[in-house]
């Protein structure tokens, strides 16, 4: 009787251990695939915004973009901009690099660097505006 119960126990425990091992393997695989699960979000989608020395601030779809200033910085031309954040995600002006351009007369330049100057918080401490610089290689 005891031997039969032992055999029955093994029949139940062995599949359970296999199941646990499978669960651990699935866990590892999902964790590994999540390593590079990085998103590129496009919503909310904004229209094109053009700023220049005459128009230094524009609001489109509740997003305000302010041109703080610009100056030559070595071989690059630096433009400082602040913009409202739609939500608490990591919003940037450029992602692939062709989303923001500098127009000088009839030439168009793409940035070689974008950097954060800082964030402006609201009264509740959440980040509402981000200020950045863009470097354009004007030569």
């Amino acid at each position, binding site marked *: 009787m005891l031997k039969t*119960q032992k055999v*029955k*126990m093994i029949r*139940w*425990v062995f599949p*359970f251990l296999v*199941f*646990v091992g499978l*669960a651990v393997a*699935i*866990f590892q695989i*999902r*964790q590994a*695939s*999540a*390593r*590079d*699960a*990085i998103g590129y979000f496009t919503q909310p989608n904004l229209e094109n915004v053009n700023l220049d020395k005459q128009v230094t601030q524009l609001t489109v779809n509740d997003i305000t973009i302010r041109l703080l200033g610009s100056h030559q910085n070595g071989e690059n031309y630096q433009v400082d901009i602040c913009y409202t954040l739609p939500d*608490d995600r*990591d919003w*940037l002006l*450029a992602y*692939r*690099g*062709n989303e923001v351009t500098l127009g000088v007369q009839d030439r168009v330049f*793409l*940035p*070689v*660097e*974008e*950097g*954060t100057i800082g964030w402006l918080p609201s009264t509740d401490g959440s980040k509402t505006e981000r200020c950045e610089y863009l470097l354009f*290689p004007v030569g």
Partner: protein
Amino acid sequence: MRKVKIALIAMSAIIIVVVLGFPFASVAYALCSGSACNGTDPLATGCSAGAATVRQKWPYGNPGPLKVELRFSDTCNTFWARSWNYSGLYYYINATLKNWYWYQRYSPPSDSTYSAQRYGSSGFQACGDFSTSPITWPVTSPSWKCTSTY
């Protein structure tokens, strides 16, 4: 015997719920803090959730095959480097947190490679490079391969 069966079934059900419900891509809590985060994986520790790119640079020009980012987590107060392969081809991609950590791998196009993280508040730079051969050293020069210091 019957009680053992019930216990095993219940444990199996719990394991199913935990494995399927565990948030892998966005862990809401950090598994390290302070200098204990040094040298650790920013994704595995949960520090990458809600992180920000504070510097991004196109070292080979824009448009170009490579983008280098300096990432910051205000959950963990850590920095790390991340490099993107925008070449359209497989290349070895190196991501270096200057003076601290580097990592390289054979990367498919439109994929990223990142370094370990370092605890701190400022003074960090991210550098990167791409090649047809493994880049098994930290990329620190020339300076155009690195972001400016945050």
